[in-house]
């Protein structure tokens, strides 16, 4: 497998009137060509911020990228650092090389522009297509994402579609210019469950067909299990565990991941057994982290957890965890 994206030591702070919000603290991960990486975590853990920042889509100010690199290997022979690109440089990547699917397609689509135009304007910009050619390509694409009567629907407006159909249009927008990566920011959250499954299936199909790497941001571990190759678990602005999906479900290493797994309802569970939850609240991001951010809620803390920020430790092939404690063996990890 070859890398398509490599993010290193990304640090983002929001400078607000109330103080500095430490949104991302040292985020590093790789994305392989054609794989699906799920990023899970609760609200405010930095899932969306990390991906929006790569395409300069965060409002800056207040957001500021304090440190980090994001090497993208899909634009020509040489890798480029997305964070260092200028306006015109990043415009070529946006939509052209990296597509975005947003959560609520109703508000994410322009209400007064036909959906056809919203797709074809992107292909005209990046692929240099003429009006007529862009329209033909768009109609094919609408047909491919499962919009019945695509030719007639080309001239419809977003409010004339159902929620699921709108999300299909959104997918078509993101994939219109044959990107290398598609970032899906909770695309199924606003949809009902049967439609969710259709959208997940459609994304998987298109991903195979066009060989796209997908980053799927979600807090739904059920969706993750069904589609992700690898999972990145985030907590309070930092990745706590990265592993292959099956490995993560079978063998979670970080106390937070373990807590999440225990909070899932199980088919085999006893009828009257209650779901467990993780005690406590996520930390206040206004304070600069000096130690493990999960320490307040962690049942396994020992003195070191309150003194240092844990680095990423390899605990298996493709399995990385940021924790000083080896939960399985009930002892602190040695220096690795």
């Amino acid at each position, binding site marked *: 497998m070859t890398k398509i994206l490599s993010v290193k030591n990304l640090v983002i702070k929001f400078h607000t009137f109330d103080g500095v919000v430490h949104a991302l603290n040292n985020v590093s991960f790789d994305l392989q060509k054609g794989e699906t990486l799920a990023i899970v975590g609760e609200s405010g853990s930095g899932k969306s911020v990390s991906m929006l920042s790569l395409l300069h889509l965060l409002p800056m100010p207040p957001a500021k990228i304090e440190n980090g690199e994001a090497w993208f290997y899909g634009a020509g022979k040489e890798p480029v650092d997305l964070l260092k690109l200028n306006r015109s440089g990043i415009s070529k990547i946006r939509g052209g090389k990296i597509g975005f699917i947003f959560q609520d397609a109703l508000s994410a689509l322009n209400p*007064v522009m036909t959906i056809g135009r919203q797709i074809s304007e*992107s292909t005209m910009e*990046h692929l240099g297509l003429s009006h007529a050619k862009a329209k033909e390509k768009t109609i094919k694409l609408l047909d491919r994402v499962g919009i019945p009567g695509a030719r007639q629907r080309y001239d419809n407006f977003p409010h*004339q579609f159902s929620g699921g159909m709108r999300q299909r249009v959104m997918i078509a927008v993101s994939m219109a210019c044959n990107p290398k990566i598609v970032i899906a920011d909770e695309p199924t959250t606003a949809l009902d469950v049967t439609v969710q499954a259709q959208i997940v299936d459609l994304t998987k199909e298109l991903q195979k067909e066009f060989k796209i790497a997908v980053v799927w941001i979600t807090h739904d571990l059920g969706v993750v299990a069904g589609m992700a190759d690898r999972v990145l678990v985030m907590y309070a602005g930092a990745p706590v565990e990265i592993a292959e999906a099956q490995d993560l479900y079978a063998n979670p290493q970080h106390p937070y991941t373990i807590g999440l797994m225990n909070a899932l309802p199980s088919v085999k569970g006893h009828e009257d057994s209650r779901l467990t939850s993780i005690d406590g609240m996520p930390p206040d991001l206004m304070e600069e982290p000096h130690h493990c951010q999960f320490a307040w809620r962690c049942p396994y803390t020992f003195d070191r957890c309150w003194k240092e920020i844990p680095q990423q430790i390899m605990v298996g092939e493709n399995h990385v965890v940021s924790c000083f404690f080896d939960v399985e063996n009930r002892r602190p990890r040695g220096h690795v």
Partner: protein
Amino acid sequence: MQRYILSRLIQSFIMLVGVLFIVFFMLQLTGDPVALMVSRNASPEQVEELREELGFNRPVMVQFADFVSKAVRGDFGMSLRHHQPAMELILERLPATVELASMALLFAMVVGIPLGLLGGSNPGSIWDTLARGAGLIGQTIPNFWLALILIMVFAVGLGWFPSFGRETRQFMGLALPTKSVILPAFALGLFTMGQLVRFTRSAVLEIKNEDFVRTAYSKGLADRRIYIKHILRNAAIPLISILGVQFGYLLSGSIYIETIFSWPGLGNLLAESIGNRDFALVQAIAFFTSLVVVSLNLTADIAYGMADPRIRYGE
């Protein structure tokens, strides 16, 4: 859409009936017009005779019914002062007012909308300071004061423009505006310009943060395209209704400006006829102005519906 237009039509009609009612009865409260028309030492018999001749001795309700039935045929009676049909006088003066209002609106749009767009898209920049300044000045400077200053500086002092009156240039049967319209149009349009700057600026600021604008950026579109096709296109919808209201205001609200610049328009005529208690003429102008405002609002509402697909394709 048809239902939408129909409901607006009905609303407009009800509004006009209300206007007729108010116009007629308000004037009844101002005193006896006949007292102004006869000489000071006329005998009571003579006054009574004139009242009878002009129909002012009939019961008020009868006068009103008579007024309405004639009004719907465009007959507002004879001007008491000019001895000419009121409607004829209005139509005579109309071109001057339309010229002034159109020029004022043109000035307000050409300056106001781009300035609001520039300010709203770069908040905190020099453009934004300029936009906010223009908005504030436009909305706070009283136009009658501004008119006097303009005359002092540009007409009397520098002699660039005439200080009063309207001149036109004939071209293929059309009376084209000359520089005589510039000072009054500027004085009249400044308030509307301020409104448009402020409105455009805040609409752009708001729409800039909408999700669909982020989507537009995520597609890698050029800034210019995003501002024109995505932001301004959405801001234009509420802007249309503002423009309708403002044009109505400009067409009807130019009494001060027309009087100061001796502009031979409707506002001037209205001021004069109120002073003369010229019943028929005041009623005719008031009704005519309302008709213009109501139909402009109706047009704006329909245009608003056409511009917004959510209404156009609604039920």
